[in-house]
C-alpha cells in the first residue's frame, strides 16, 4: 500500500494551493456578500471570536461598505496566494479575511459544512508555504486528510446515533422529498419523484448506507488504491446525487475531491501511485 500524495511535485502542490485559494477567489469575486447589509442587525448572531467583539464593532462590520471592503481585500489576498511567494506572505491574512467573511455569513444562517474543509485548506496551504522545507510539499496530503476526516465525523455520528433504525426507515426518502420542495438556488429537485417512483425510493434507501460506509472510511482512500476506487466514486456520486435530488451542492468539496483524486500528479504517475 502506497500513500497518495506522499511526495507530490511542486507543480501538483501549486495546483492544490491554486484550488484552495482559487475557490475562495471565485466565491468572493462573484458572491455579493454586501447584500446581507439590508438584513436586520438583530438577526445577526456571529459564531466564535466574532461574537466576542463589542456590539458596535459587529454592527460596523456588517455594514455595506465594510462587507464590500472585506470582499475586495479577501479576493485580492486570494489572488496573491495563487503564487507560492504570495501564499508565504499573505496566506495568513487571506485566511483571516476568509474566516471573517465566513463568520459574517454564518451569523445570518446556520453552519455551512460545505465551506469548512475549503476554509481549513487555505490555512494548510498558507502554513505549507510559510514553513516550507525545500523540495517538500506536504499540503496535498494534509488537505486531503482534513477534507476526508469531515466525512468520517459525519458518518460515525450517523451510524452511532441513527443506528440500524435509520437505515431501515424511509427517512432518506422523506428528506429527499422535503428538500426538493424548497425554492432554492438550484431547482433540479429530483427528490420530489421519490414518492411516485418506487424504484427511485428503493435506490435512495440502498445507497444511503453504502454512501455512509464510504464516508466513514474515507481517509483510508489515501492509503489503499483499491479502497480509493470505491470511496472516491461513492463520495463524488453522493455529491452529484444530493445536488440533483435535494438541490444541495458542496461545490468546494467536490472540486477539492476532483483535484486531489482525479487529477494525476506527473511525479506520482511515473512512480505508478495513481
Amino acid at each position, binding site marked *: *500500500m*502506497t*500513500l497518495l500524495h506522499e511526495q507530490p511535485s511542486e507543480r501538483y502542490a501549486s495546483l492544490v494551493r491554486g484550488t484552495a485559494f482559487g475557490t475562495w477567489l471565485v466565491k468572493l469575486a462573484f458572491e*455579493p456578500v454586501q*447584500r*446581507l447589509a*439590508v*438584513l436586520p442587525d*438583530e*438577526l445577526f*448572531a456571529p*459564531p*466564535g471570536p466574532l*461574537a466576542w467583539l463589542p456590539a458596535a464593532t459587529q454592527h460596523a462590520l456588517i455594514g455595506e461598505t465594510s462587507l464590500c471592503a472585506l470582499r475586495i481585500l479577501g479576493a485580492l489576498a486570494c489572488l496573491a496566494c495563487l503564487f507560492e511567494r504570495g501564499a508565504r506572505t499573505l496566506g495568513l491574512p487571506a485566511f483571516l479575511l476568509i474566516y471573517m467573511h465566513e463568520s459574517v*455569513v454564518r451569523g*445570518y*444562517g*446556520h*453552519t*455551512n459544512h460545505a465551506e*469548512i474543509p475549503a*476554509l*481549513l485548506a487555505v490555512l494548510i496551504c498558507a*502554513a*505549507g508555504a510559510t*514553513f516550507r522545507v525545500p523540495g*517538500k510539499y*506536504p499540503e496535498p496530503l494534509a488537505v486531503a486528510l*482534513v477534507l476526508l*476526516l469531515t466525512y*468520517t465525523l*459525519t*458518518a*460515525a*455520528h*450517523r*451510524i*452511532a*446515533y441513527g443506528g440500524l433504525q*435509520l437505515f431501515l*426507515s424511509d*427517512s*432518506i426518502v*422523506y*428528506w429527499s*422529498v*422535503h*428538500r426538493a*420542495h*424548497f*425554492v*432554492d*438556488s438550484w431547482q433540479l429537485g429530483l427528490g420530489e419523484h421519490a*414518492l411516485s417512483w418506487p424504484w427511485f425510493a428503493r435506490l435512495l434507501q440502498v445507497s444511503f448506507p453504502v454512501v455512509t460506509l464510504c464516508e*466513514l*472510511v474515507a*481517509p483510508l482512500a489515501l*492509503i489503499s488504491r483499491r479502497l480509493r476506487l470505491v470511496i472516491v466514486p461513492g463520495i463524488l456520486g453522493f455529491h452529484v446525487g444530493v445536488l440533483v435530488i435535494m438541490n*444541495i*451542492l458542496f461545490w468546494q468539496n467536490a472540486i477539492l475531491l476532483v483535484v486531489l483524486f482525479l487529477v494525476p500528479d506527473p511525479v506520482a504517475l511515473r512512480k505508478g501511485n495513481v
Partner: protein
Amino acid sequence: LRLVLEVILIACVLGVFALRASVRAWLAATSRPFLVVCAILLAGLVAGHLSRNRGKAFPFVYWYMYTQPETAEVIEHLHITAITTRGERFELNGAHVFPSLGLGTFRLYSRLLGVAYDPLVADKPDARALLRGIALGYERLHPERRLGSIALEMVTTPYTKARYERRVIAAVELP
C-alpha cells in the same frame, strides 16, 4: 454508549491510517511547524464535533447531517410569496437575492425555519424583520418591480402527494 461507539469508529479509522508505515515516514519527513498546524486542525475538528459545538469554536463544528430517523405524514416547507404594487403574485427565491446564504445550501431557510417555528414569539417579529430585509434586497435587485407585500407561508403537503395547504406564518405590508 452511542458517544463511545462514535469515538471508537473515528479512532479506528484514524488509527488504521496513522499506523501505516508510509504515513509515519511522511510524518518524519515533514516540517514540525507544519505538522503542529495540521495536528491543531485535526484535533480541533474532532474536539469541536465531539463537544457538539455549533458555533462557539467556529470553524470546529458539529458534523450532524441526516442522523435522526425522520418520517411524517405531511411534508412542511416554507415559501416566500410576494405581491408587487401592480398586483402580480410570485414565489420569491431568497437564494437569488442573497447568494451568500443560499447558493446550494440551506442557510436562508434554516434561519426562516428558526423564526417560523419559534413557539415563544407568537407574532413573529423576527420573521417580519427578516421578510422586510428580503423585500428590500429584492427591490434593490429589481427596482422596476416594487413590492406591495411579502409573506412567509408554510406549505403542507400530505406525504401521499395529494393536495397541499398553505398557511401564512408572517406577512408584511410594505410602504
